[in-house]
């Protein structure tokens, strides 16, 4: 069937800011959909207020809106753009929920928009577990025994019938949010009450516990002509009880017989038909009883999902791209598979490898939040690896997850601890299991299987690995004395068929199972370099296979690779034409989508300049791992060993390390020593900037102020230096990532408390003790340098108080109310640092301004997380500029720094092209209900939202809304103001009162306000007793918080208020400028205007 011609323009709704359960997979799917539909000649309009995304890059869609995903804004955009159709299946649950809201508000009908993909009714069925169950029963399939509960008493009646444990899930939530297991009656009652409150429709599904059952997922594609195929089957290594997003998974299904699998396949397709998903990709989840084989249907998502992104990368079948084409009535046999270029999309993918996904948890950030996993997703990212065997894929995926393991490794814990870890849904359970198998042998497979629910197949594979590792260890023990002599001999002759270091057959088998050189070295007590040298000597290198969707039946034309050992090597090298771009690996707090966007945009820019790009990344959610983005795609771990093998394979030496965050940067030295030419800033200078001691000297040399700082090689020194510098102090280890392990101490007691949280202080890993600049304002500056001239992309002012991690602070571009002299000083500093460090490419600097003094807080010689946001706001694609610099086009040639544009000698500056752009941080605290994550110098946010507007107020109001809370247009404002802010704050509070807000305040503030003619209700501070401000927040009696920092003694009070405000989605401001912004925002809202402007088209 040809594409629909009754529609010309299509609106795609994005998924908004990244939260746990909804990450960059929707940038990937949205981006594919936009491209596929534009290729078919449709005008594509996109709405997504997430500035970090690739899809919102100007030029990629015909019109891009970054307004809040709410009914009024969508109404306005539909009014303005008059699209013929709406595609709601690309933006996750957010887009589906918004589409239902639009339908209920009559907006869809009003604008006569057709809903493509999943009709409203099918979305309702799939989301409403009760209705879904009815549909399942209607086609003769089984669901878990369950009941749809809206009262606690009904819940108790149900439990009396089916027994405990049961699972409780609120209806209509993201990624299983709020789903939990109740083991006792008391737990049940508590959890049910909570679930009823969580659910927007105040209903919950209570169902029999399938804990320990095997869990499977099928990715199904269906077209409007009722043809259907299963693109990928996935088996969860962690069975039922752990959210699939938190499970280790393997594709394809490993342990089902063909009969069982075909039964599931047929059921999945029938479910799509019954639910009424017209076309597109859907994910169907099943559970089977490990002994009886009873199969039940768990759920289905009538849209592309995290699993479909995973399935796309695991099979090479571009689900979202295909789904977009099916949405405009193409049929599966009309859509050609891009990988083979010769098979049609109804040719079901066949894999000749296994693909293993490992979740990445933030154990360091939320240590208490991970004691046990459950039915609510808690991981923030994932890595995918492909290998010819399960073990090779598993080892690579773990290495790629960057969680401090080289692959599967045994843990140095006593047996009892290992058993107890294996018995729990612990995030490191697989390691505990492996340790037990390695220590106690494979006779324990049955026992472990019963305990963990791991299938015996996977345990047997682990036992095989344990045997192999024992063999390696034994060889190492036998040959340990020979290590030195083998090194000394160093001739090819020393190797031969047997080697003093390690028998070659053993090395060959180890590499075939994906064991890294580092791990082998550790097992035999050698240096990784020894293993690498031996492999080079023996020409034992990785070979690469195509991911071709067809197990080799047809020649693939799209070079999407994974590594293997001792097999055929496919694909010819690119040679020096190639440039290797190192991605950023799995998402984590502090390193996520922003970096992937930089990598993707750089590949596009390089290709425009006729370079061939080689992308290396292990994160299956991303756009960068879309095989269309680069000339070559390697789904491989971002470790030096793996990258070196890729360099060798491709014969390419240029490596870009500035765009993949800290992961890529950390490899620079090792790659350079292996012959890589690191693109841009020289490695030595990167090192200077990264090493705080060296950096301090550089700053001193060029005369820039830094907060007082000292390096402490021991705990005692930390305390002594803190006393010398003076409290409060900021504490951090030498190498940092997104603020990990940083802390502020106001007192020696707090300092000791911080050090006791497992912080190492040694000669090798000293702790940095910095003066903490209280009441300062912070700024972020992103710049590009060609080595001489400097282009400052923009300076962003943090709206929140200093001391909160830059990634967690709202910021505004251009800076709001600022001292021009300070801005000039920052630009001067940027130029001086760029020139002193010899930066070629990106430079990010964080400043603090305190009492007219500009301090340099931190310098990152790489693209920062604000680059995509700044690019969109300023209308200058900074990544493209960087790539051009690297290809020899200096800033002058690019017309960015010219005598006309210079603001300082050799320095030019970008300007906000959209009026005002506010970036607001977005948190996922609701995933960790039992912990109090205090905001501070450790980054905690998972994503960001943008607000764009003609006024600061409009931008602020939109950013607040897109981040998940709404500024109030009436109600009660809580005010607590620091003495020094009182005069500036007074007119703001007065205006709020005049706008009709009730004012409540702390006693001191209330007195001050009263003296100035403003009446307010007095509320207690947290430490003053009950009911205090937090109680009122919890009771929903406060609609806006204005709380400017009150000094060191109340820092914790402030944090507590902020956390509660975040939990209850109450807007919260900590500075006078933020309060003013909120006031402006409120005034904008009260005017009742709903304005939506697309991003300016690229020049």
């Amino acid at each position, binding site marked *: 069937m040809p594409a629909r011609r009754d529609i010309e323009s299509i609106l795609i709704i994005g998924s908004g800011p990244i939260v746990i359960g909804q990450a960059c997979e929707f940038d990937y799917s949205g981006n594919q959909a936009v491209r596929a539909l534009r290729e078919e000649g449709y005008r594509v309009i996109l709405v997504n207020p997430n500035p970090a995304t690739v899809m919102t890059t100007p030029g990629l869609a015909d019109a891009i809106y970054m307004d809040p995903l709410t009914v009024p804004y969508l109404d306005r955009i539909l009014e303005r753009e008059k699209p013929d159709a709406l595609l709601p299946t690309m933006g996750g649950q957010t887009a589906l929920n918004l589409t239902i809201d639009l339908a209920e508000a009559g907006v869809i009908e009003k604008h006569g928009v057709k809903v493509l993909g999943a009709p409203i009714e099918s979305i309702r069925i799939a989301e409403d577990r009760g209705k879904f169950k009815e549909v399942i029963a209607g086609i003769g399939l089984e669901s878990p025994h369950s009941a749809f509960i809206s009262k606690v008493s009904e819940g108790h009646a149900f439990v009396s019938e089916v027994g405990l444990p049961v699972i409780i899930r609120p209806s209509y939530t993201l990624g299983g949010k709020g789903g939990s297991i109740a083991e006792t009656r008391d737990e049940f009652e508590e959890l049910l009450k909570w679930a009823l409150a969580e659910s927007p429709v105040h209903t919950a599904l209570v169902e029999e516990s399938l804990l320990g059952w095997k869990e499977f997922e099928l990715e199904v594609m269906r077209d409007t002509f009722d043809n259907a195929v299963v693109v990928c089957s996935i088996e969860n290594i962690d069975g039922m009880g752990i959210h699939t997003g938190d499970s280790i998974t393997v594709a394809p299904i490993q342990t089902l017989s*063909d009969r069982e699998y075909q039964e599931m396949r047929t059921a999945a397709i029938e479910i799509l038909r019954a639910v009424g998903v017209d076309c597109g990709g859907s994910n169907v989840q099943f559970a089977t009883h490990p002994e009886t084989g009873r199969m039940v249907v768990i759920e289905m998502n009538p849209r592309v999902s995290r699993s479909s992104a995973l399935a796309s990368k695991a099979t090479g079948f571009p689900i979202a791209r295909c789904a977009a084409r099916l949405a405009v009535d193409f*049929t599966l046999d009309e859509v050609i598979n891009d990988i083979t270029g010769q098979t049609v999309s109804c040719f079901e993918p066949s894999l*000749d490898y296994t693909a293993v996904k490992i979740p990445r948890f933030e154990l360091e950030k939320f240590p208490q939040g991970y004691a046990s996993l459950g039915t609510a997703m808690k991981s923030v990212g994932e890595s995918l690896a492909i290998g010819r065997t399960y073990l090779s894929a598993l080892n690579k995926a773990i290495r790629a997850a960057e969680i401090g393991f080289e692959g599967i490794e045994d843990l140095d814990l006593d047996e009892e601890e290992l058993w107890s870890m294996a018995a729990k849904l612990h995030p490191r359970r697989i390691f505990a299991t492996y340790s037990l198998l390695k220590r106690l042998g494979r006779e324990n497979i049955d026992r472990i299987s019963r305990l963990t629910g791991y299938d015996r*197949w996977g345990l047997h594979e682990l036992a095989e690995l344990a045997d192999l590792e024992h063999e390696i260890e034994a060889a190492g023990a036998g040959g340990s004395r020979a290590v030195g002599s083998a090194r000394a001999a160093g001739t090819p002759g020393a190797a031969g068929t047997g080697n003093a270091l390690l028998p070659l057959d053993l090395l060959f088998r180890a590499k075939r199972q994906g064991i890294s050189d580092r791990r082998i070295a550790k097992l035999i007590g050698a240096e990784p370099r020894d293993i690498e040298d031996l492999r080079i000597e023996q020409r034992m290198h990785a070979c690469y296979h195509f991911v071709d969707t067809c197990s*080799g039946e047809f020649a693939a034309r799209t070079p999407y690779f994974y590594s293997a050992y001792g097999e055929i090597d496919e694909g010819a090298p690119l040679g020096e034409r190639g440039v290797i771009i190192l991605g950023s690996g799995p998402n984590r707090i502090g390193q996520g989508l922003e970096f992937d966007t930089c990598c993707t945009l750089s590949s596009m820019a390089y290709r425009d300049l006729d370079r061939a790009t080689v992308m290396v990344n292990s994160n299956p959610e991303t756009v960068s791992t879309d095989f269309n983005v680069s000339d070559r795609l390697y789904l491989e771990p971002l470790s030096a060993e793996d990258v070196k093998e890729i360099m060798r394979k491709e014969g390419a030496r240029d490596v870009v390390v500035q765009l993949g965050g800290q992961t890529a940067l950390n490899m620079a030295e090792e790659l350079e020593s292996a012959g890589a030419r690191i693109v841009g800033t020289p490695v030595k200078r990167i090192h200077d900037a990264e090493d705080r001691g060296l950096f301090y000297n550089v700053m001193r040399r060029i005369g820039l102020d830094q907060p007082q700082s000292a390096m402490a090689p021991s705990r005692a020194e930390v305390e002594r230096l803190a006393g010398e510098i003076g409290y409060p102090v900021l504490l951090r280890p030498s190498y940092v990532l997104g603020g990990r392990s940083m802390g502020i101490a106001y007192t020696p007691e707090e300092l000791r408390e911080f050090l006791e949280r497992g912080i190492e202080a040694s000669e090798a890993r000293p702790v940095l003790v910095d003066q903490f600049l209280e009441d300062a304002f912070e700024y972020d500056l992103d710049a590009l340098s060609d080595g001489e001239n400097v282009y400052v992309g923009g300076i962003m002012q943090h709206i929140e108080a200093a001391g909160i991690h830059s990634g967690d602070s709202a910021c505004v571009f251009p800076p709001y109310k600022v001292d021009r002299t300070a801005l000039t000083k920052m630009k001067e500093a940027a130029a001086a640092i760029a020139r002193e460090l010899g930066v070629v490419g990106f430079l990010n600097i964080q400043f603090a301004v305190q009492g007219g003094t500009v301090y340099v807080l931190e310098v990152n010689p790489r693209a920062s997380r604000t680059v995509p946001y700044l690019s969109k706001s300023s209308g200058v694609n900074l990544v493209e500029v960087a790539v051009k610099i690297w290809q020899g086009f200096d800033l002058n040639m690019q017309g960015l720094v010219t005598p006309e544009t210079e603001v300082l000698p050799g320095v030019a500056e970008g300007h906000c092209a959209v009026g005002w752009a506010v970036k607001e941080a977005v948190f996922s605290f609701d995933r960790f209900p039992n912990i109090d994550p205090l905001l501070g110098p450790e980054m905690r946010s998972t994503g960001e939202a943008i607000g764009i507007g003609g006024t600061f107020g409009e931008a602020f109001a939109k950013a607040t809304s897109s981040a998940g809370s709404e500024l109030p247009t009436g109600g009660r404002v809580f005010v607590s103001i620091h003495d020094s802010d009182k005069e500036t704050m007074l007119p703001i509070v007065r205006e709020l009162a005049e706008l009709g807000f009730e004012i409540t305040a702390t006693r001191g503030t209330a007195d001050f306000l009263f003296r100035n003619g403003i009446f307010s209700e007095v509320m207690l501070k947290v430490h003053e007793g009950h009911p205090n401000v937090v109680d009122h927040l919890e009771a929903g009696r406060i609609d806006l918080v204005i709380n400017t920092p009150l000094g060191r003694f109340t820092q914790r009070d402030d944090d507590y208020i902020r956390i509660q405000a975040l939990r209850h989605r109450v807007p919260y401001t900590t500075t006078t400028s933020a309060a003013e912004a909120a006031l402006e925002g409120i005034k904008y809202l009260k005017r009742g205007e709903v304005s939506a402007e697309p991003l300016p088209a690229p020049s």
Partner: protein
Amino acid sequence: MQSACLFLADGSVFPGISFGAPPFRLDDLVPGEERPKGAGEVVFNTAMSGYHEVLTDPSYTGQIVTMTYPHIGNYGTTNEWSETGPEPGTDRPGVKVAGFVLRSLYEGPVGPGRRPLPEFLAAQGTPGITDVDTRGLTLHLRDEGSVSGVIVEAPEGFERWRPQETIPEEFRSRVMAFLAAFPEMEGRNLVGEVGTTAEEVINPEGSPHIALLDCGVKGNIVRELVGRGAKVSVWPSAAEPGDILGEGPDAVVVSNGPGDPAVLGYQIESVQRLMSEKPTLGICLGHQLISEAVGAKTYKMKFGHHGVNHPVRDEQSGHVFVTSQNHGFAVEEASLPENVTVWLKNANDGSIEGIKLSDRPVMSAQFHPEAAPGPRDARWIFDEFMELVRSASASTSATGS
């Protein structure tokens, strides 16, 4: 761990580790001597599950099958899944493939009532080889076409990671001499080695009565027919058509089977006679025999279709469904006579997947509507055939009265 090699007639060698029945030793290889196991045409199958069904599918007789999916054996084996047809006097769960080539054999524990794959193959006298670069082998077969091969115990001093250097020239040339004399699949008549040797009646009380010409029928074809209520008389493919018709069946099914259809002159003639009198369904080899019977030609494909993911389009309705396939020969479209309608086509390569006669109630499918292994999307073909049989017998009885 015994090293072994898969040698191909074109000189390529794929090293691995032996399992199942022991491989040939060099001295076992006598040029010109045919071997039911250990040597055969090497083909690849892209199904990710269903290895037991593949092993027991009689159509694979004379073929060494390499599974492209690496992990095989994970869920064990059981006679319940056997596809071997009703052959009296033979071991029912008989493994039909001549050899099994894998990347990674599972040797761990399997569920209750199931038997580990290596044990099953050993008991069935079938050699296997694992740890093979099956990807390399598959690409080789794809590019060069299917070729004869033999699994041989590795010579002394053999090292898996450098096979070329460690196989003595004399060893290699003796293996090559054996393979050079090994019969090619084109022109090979293998139906004599499979299928029932005497008439077998299944579900004798059932109706309609279907006569099945057994060229190596898969068990699930019989199960699908019986499941729809039919009485099935399974006849040896060498049976007299007169004997078959003499029992007054309502319809005929011509089964799948191994080898080259063009050389099955006797069966082609039988099919001509049977389908001129009874509604007929042909499956796989049966489809090719029907095509030959109407005067069309078959040809040897480069490497055939062996997998469970091939899309087939119904040329009338435009619907597409995913099918289980296992064939190395296909019907030439240009050779089809006028009374033949192309019913189904491969949505991928356009090859013929099914035909219907415009003047007779005859239909045939190149793929396996009975699945096993593979998707069940095409089971409606049996429904459609039963419908055809019912309406044909209704019209016959109407004419009769």
